[in-house]
């Protein structure tokens, strides 16, 4: 088990490096002096030279990449060009809001999706199953920002049941949760559809497999079949989707944060991109990618624990 984890970690570090190279390289893909692009035209020529030197933009590319990489390993993600403040603390300040949103959304979708999926697989081919299937196909088509706009329109503007903007009062958990409900639901809708469909299909497949038949032949009652045997085999698929979905959620949160005007990582990245703060944007993206990669590792480990065929290969 330990060897498996170590292998995965090494592989992912390499991928991470690749990602950083892409990020870094993106700026160089654009024709023109990178320094000029980063500073835009805001600054007059004298200060420009100073800033260029201070930010190290006059060094050759390899050295800059090396310094950046070294800095990342030490938690130094660069500075905002305009204000000269460090990037990482700012990002970490807004990170909890994004994480909260993603977790809440994922939590809702797992609870609803798994329950519906199990029920639909159990009552296969009944009216209930068909209704649920139609609903989840519809839900899957609801891309996050469309769902967000719909929810915003109906529940916040027309019915005024939920607040439409912001994250709520600082320090007031209830208020913040209240502000979370609509955005998290918007994110969750399409995931409920995915998860339900996945649970229903993999559970259905497991329930009709040979080893379940053998278990029943040996007298194991139908009720414990689902809980003990079937779920464990189907859990692998669910865990994988949840893990991957997490990354998509983190990214998709971007739209939600903008539409609902919340503080969050996605919004900060977009704003940084608009104002040409490339260090900040890069840093934000890097944080998201690190989180995503971390979740992928955890998912792989959980899968290897559930299904021994993977780790013993």
């Amino acid at each position, binding site marked *: 088990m330990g060897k498996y984890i170590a292998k995965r970690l090494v592989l992912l570090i*390499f991928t991470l490096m690749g990602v950083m190279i892409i990020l870094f390289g993106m700026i160089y893909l654009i024709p023109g002096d990178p320094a000029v692009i980063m500073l835009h035209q805001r600054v007059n020529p004298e200060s420009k030279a100073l800033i260029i030197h201070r930010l190290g933009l006059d060094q050759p590319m390899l050295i800059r990449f090396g310094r950046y990489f070294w800095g990342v390993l030490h938690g130094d993600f660069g500075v905002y060009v305009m204000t000269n403040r460090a990037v990482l603390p700012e990002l970490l300040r807004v990170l909890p809001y994004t994480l909260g949103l993603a977790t809440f959304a994922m939590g809702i979708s797992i609870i609803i999706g798994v329950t519906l999926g199990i029920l639909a697989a159990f009552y296969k081919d009944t009216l209930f199953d068909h209704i649920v299937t139609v609903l989840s*196909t519809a839900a899957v*088509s609801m*891309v996050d*920002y469309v769902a967000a706009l719909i929810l915003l329109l109906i529940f916040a503007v027309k019915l005024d049941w939920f607040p439409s903007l912001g994250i709520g009062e600082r320090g007031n958990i209830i208020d913040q949760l209240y502000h979370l409900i609509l955005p998290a639901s918007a994110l969750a809708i399409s995931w409920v559809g995915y998860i339900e469909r996945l649970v229903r299909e993999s559970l259905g497949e497991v329930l009709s497999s040979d080893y379940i038949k053998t278990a029943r032949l040996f007298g194991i009652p139908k009720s414990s079949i689902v809980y003990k045997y079937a779920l464990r085999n189907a859990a692998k698929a669910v865990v994988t989707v949840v893990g991957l979905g997490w990354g998509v959620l983190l*990214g*998709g949160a971007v*739209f939600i944060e903008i539409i609902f005007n919340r503080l969050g990582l996605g919004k900060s990245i977009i704003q940084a991109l*608009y104002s040409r703060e490339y260090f900040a944007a890069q840093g934000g993206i890097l944080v998201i990618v690190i989180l995503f990669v971390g979740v992928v590792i955890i998912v792989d480990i959980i899968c290897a624990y559930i299904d021994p065929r993977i780790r013993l290969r």
Partner: protein
Amino acid sequence: MKNSKNNYSAAQRWYNIKRRFLYQVKKQKRVLINIIKTPQGIVGTFIIAGLILCALAGPWITPQDPFKIVIANRFAPPSFKYLLGTDFLGRDILSRIIISTRVVVPISLSVIAIIIIVGMTSGMVAGYYSNTIVEKIIIWMFDSINTFPGIILVLTLAAIVGSSSKIVLILLMSLWRFPGYGRIVRVETLSVKEEVYIKAAQALGVKEKGILFHHIMPNVIAPIIVLAGMDFGVVTMMLAGLSFLGMGVQPPACSLGRMLQEGYVYIHQSSWMLVGPILALSVVMIGCSLFSAGLRIALNPKESFGR
């Protein structure tokens, strides 16, 4: 008139290519007919066909002039004249939706075409030349792109590279999607590669290019066609999302995302501005889901047995 290159004359080679193409077309016709047999397939095809028709017919089927500004009639709710209401400049929303398909559909279709071609080629190469440096590099490329949550990648690229030109948009979104296809094709190629008829072709001395495109390709193409059907919707959504944030299709060209953004800005004055584009996008997405579900059933002989 023997050509020293291939022992075929140019005219004969052209004839061969034409014949092969028509044979593929004939095969696909059967698949298409199968699609129409399923309920999902019918609805899905209907929607997609309608979409393409709108894009083609464009300006001729709009009930009103999509660009005509009538300030006096801003924020009007739906009526006979303006079936989906008017926006903040008094323009008919339905007409604007119809005409925005002219912009959106070609972009999405091009993206799909590119990712199928590039994804399939890279996947086949990676799968065929497994355990070589080439494969490792290609996989590393796939993984690196895939670790970005899609929106982040596209947005960042759009912001940096600038998204004024349509071609750039197309390339960006192709870059975002193609690794998924590449991976699937690679896995399929790995298993198809071991089949006996491939070994036979190799033993007969068929060149690698021939093996890849003539033998392997038809066998690995099925899953990504289904994926492509779904992705058409996904790409359209992403395009609209980009336009929503101001980084996609630029005015004065009309696009669904932009209409959404305008609706968002004026959400308190008129809810109808949002309803139209939301309906349109949802219809596109549902149509694509149904179409690709029908496609999946049609392509899978086990599921379509007994119909």
